[in-house]
């Protein structure tokens, strides 16, 4: 992953709400207390990130921790108070309004937390709307819209208005609308929050499929750690507008940066995130077979337990890095100390 080009980067991005926020930033870096004392809200504080092409980058954090605001800064829907945002190396904050329109029409997309469907348009017209703005002719855009509407399971509802749909159905219209364009950079703000578990899983699979096939870059906000684990290459944890830690799901669980992150990940079943590589022990006895080090324990636990011998663990290049026993797996499964 680290060898891919950086798709989106941000450096020292701030968003402070309140009167005269720039004054506070002109001097030394202010602390949270100083921001509050000045009567401001630090919605995003000094965030620096790099997201690589083809990566699914998840942002998590408590309600009000600044996730939506950060994503809005990254897409320049709101002007950050300070900082730099680079999209394919181009500074978005210096980009002209004209060019920004072009970038948004063809290269960026967003699914909104509260759906943002246009009340005066039907499902079909809503989904076709971004294409209409791009200037796609009517027949082509409606055909494409019908296609993605079927994909999200709403075939037959094309003529309905948003208010005639349930919350989950509306959310799927929002997803379909974004799918219709297939932009290279995708911002998804809690895109599945209103969906039932079955459809949610289907939608996740759909995004994974598109992302693998077309090398899309996705920045994804969610409250659901299970979802994050399924999708994320890396997760950023936010607190009070600042990013506390950016790491793989496994690193977050195994090496939380502070008590906040630890509390955040406390109830995550470890077997879902821990890989064989991190519990492999040195040894060179006989083995039942080979397993990749990147495999998560949950996926291979049955296999290891059923065998009487340990398994050899291989790294990406196929070299042996150690062995795992059934006992080590059970230790993780039942949370016995290590």
């Amino acid at each position, binding site marked *: 992953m680290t060898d891919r080009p950086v798709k989106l980067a941000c450096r020292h991005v701030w968003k402070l709400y309140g009167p005269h926020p720039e004054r506070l930033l002109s001097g030394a870096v202010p602390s949270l207390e100083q921001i509050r004392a000045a009567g401001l809200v630090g919605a995003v504080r000094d965030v620096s990130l790099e997201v690589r092409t083809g990566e699914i980058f998840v942002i998590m954090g408590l309600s009000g921790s600044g996730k939506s605001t950060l994503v809005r800064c990254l897409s320049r829907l709101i002007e950050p108070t300070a900082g730099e945002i680079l999209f394919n190396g181009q500074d978005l904050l210096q980009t002209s309004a004209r060019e920004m*329109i072009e970038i*948004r*029409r063809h290269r*960026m997309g*967003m699914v*909104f937390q509260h*759906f943002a469907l246009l009340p005066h348009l039907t499902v079909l017209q809503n989904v076709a709307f971004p294409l209409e*703005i791009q200037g796609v002719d009517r027949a082509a855009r409606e055909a494409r819209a019908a296609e993605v509407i079927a994909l999200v399971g709403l075939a037959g509802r094309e003529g309905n208005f948003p208010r005639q749909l349930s919350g989950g159905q509306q959310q799927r219209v929002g997803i379909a609308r974004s799918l219709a364009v297939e932009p290279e950079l995708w911002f998804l703000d809690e895109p599945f929050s209103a969906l039932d578990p079955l459809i949610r899983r289907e939608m996740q699979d759909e995004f994974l499929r598109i992302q693998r096939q077309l090398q899309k870059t996705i920045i994804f906000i969610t409250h659901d750690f299970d979802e994050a684990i399924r999708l994320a290459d890396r997760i950023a944890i936010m607190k009070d507008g600042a990013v506390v830690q950016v790491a793989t799901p496994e690193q977050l669980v195994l090496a939380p940066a502070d008590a906040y992150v630890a509390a955040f990940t406390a109830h995550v079943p470890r077997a879902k995130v821990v890989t064989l590589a991190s519990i492999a022990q040195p040894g060179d006895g006989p083995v039942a077979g080979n397993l990749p080090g990147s495999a998560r324990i949950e996926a291979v636990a049955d296999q290891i337990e059923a065998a009487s011998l340990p398994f050899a663990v291989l790294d990406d290049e196929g070299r042996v890095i150690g062995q795992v026993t059934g006992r080590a797996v059970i230790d993780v499964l039942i949370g016995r100390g290590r």
Partner: protein
Amino acid sequence: MTARLLWPGLAALSLILAALVAQMPGWALLPPAALHLDMAAWVSAAMVWLVEQATFGLFTVKQATRALAAMIEWPYEAARVLLVDGITEGRGRKAVTLVPPLSWIAVTVAMGTLGVYARNLWLGLGVGALFLYLAVFGQWESAMITLASIVIAVPIGVMGGLVLGVAAYLSPRFDRLQSPVLDLMQTVPTFAYLVPILFLFGFGPVAALLATVIYAMPPMVRITTLALRSIPPEINDFARMVGCTGWQRLRKVLLPAALPDLMVGVNQVIMLSLNMVIIASMIGAGGLGFDVLNALRRLDIGAGVEAGLAITALAVALDRLSQALALRAGLPDAATGSWIKRHPKTLAVLALVLATGLLGLVWPWLQTYPKAGELSTKAFWSDLVKSININYFDQLEAWRTFVLTYMLLPVKRFLLALPWPWVVALVTLAGWQLGRARLAALCLGLSLFLVAAGLWEQAMTTVYLCGVSVVVAVLVGLPLGVLAASNATAGKVIGGVIDTLQTLPSFVYLIPVVMLFRVGDFSAMTAVVLYALAPAVRYTAHGLRAVPEELVEAGTVCGCTPWQVLTRIRLPMALPDILLGVNQTIMLALSMLVITALVGTRDLGQEVYIALTRADTGAGIVAGVCVAALAIIADRLIAAGAAQARARLGMGGDA
């Protein structure tokens, strides 16, 4: 403790002061002439300068007003040709009609069809019946003159309101600039700007149209800005995120998303235009308003009632139509296919227009409703009122005398006996208590303006008439609102009556009142109460309905009786809404007072009316601004009170 005794104490002091009126020096009762500023003369001089000398560099003000007049005149003439005059050759009696105007059948059917399009057959039939009524009862021509004004004034008002509203939405600075202007335009009584318009544009339909637009536009501006602001921000973000240009965002996303709200604004513009077109008949708009005015002047009861009913019919038809269109605005146009296929109704109406136009040349009754078929209710109304007056004169007179002697006159005497410095001090103190220095300064400034204008006595008379009317309206409206909120059937009935009352132009209220009670303060008060009742009822009902069910349930669980639920939970929670309703009632009452000047009151409204008849620009504007000053004082004090009530109830938000 002291705070609680403050206002009762001041009230007692006021009573004592009023009782000492005989001992009071003259300068305390009425501001001495030394304090008057001759603002009327200044304004008049400024207007004269404006018309005779002022230029915008390339052209003079006079040329500008002429150009504006021509711009409005042209479409107005077109509308008149279509609805009233047709195309004629020659003048006066010798005129030969080349192309007739739209026939009564065509207009009636077109309006009915619009009703079918907007909602259903029932609305279509209803609207058609109302127009048929206009034809059958001989009001057709006047009604069409009024309609021609509306047809021109409404699009101008809507477009202008839309443009200004969008500008205010896009630029907060522009919003801050125009907001006080809009406030003033809405609080200065309509008559007051008839005067300068008359001065700039002369007597005639164009001046009337202009006044109508000025009067009807502010709500559209406000509603546009509000509707755009209340679109969820995510929708705005979405529009930017798919790469809409500014214009695309406005046209394809924001305005359509706001359409249902905007249509409410259009409805407002229509109703206000209708109201104003009637008033503007005083400066030459003609039509139904002129008929009413004429009838009132001649005390011709039958004609007055007939014209009044015609206005009512037109108002109800236009109101229901535009409301149905507003509701429809959110719905799709399902039909597809060629234009002809998609518009069968339009085609049918066009065919009918042609058919009645052509055949009307042979059979005139197709073109113009035949005189022989007209019904007149004039005699009926005159007889009815006559018989009421003969049979119930004593009762009516007793009631009138009772209210006058025990309610109106004592209040009037009391208010006029108060020394003016005391009143100014009280108003300022109220401002201080509700809104600290800023509000106190505003109250002080505005009340001193009344002093300086030399209209103190008229202002206090206005306060008296308005105050009594508002108290009565609230006393009647509050229980009605409670009833409407607590009983579904009653709610429907009361809602319907109130809706209809509100669609009637203010003029109409004068007719029955004058017939039964002749001219004077009592008639004025009754008309004002009828006109201003609606918001008191409506806001009360709304406020009571909006109380969260959980709170009521909490009360019930605690064992409150229904009465306790009402007095302990619902009414206190609804207080901010009720106060807003009272505020609206005051505004309506003030605007109505100017109209009641026609029945011989002696307040600021009368000053404005006199100025209008004498075409005295300065006096008219100053008196108008005095009414606005009273309105602003009342408005700001009540708004501050409502905000305090809200804060106390922990509802947040500022009113």
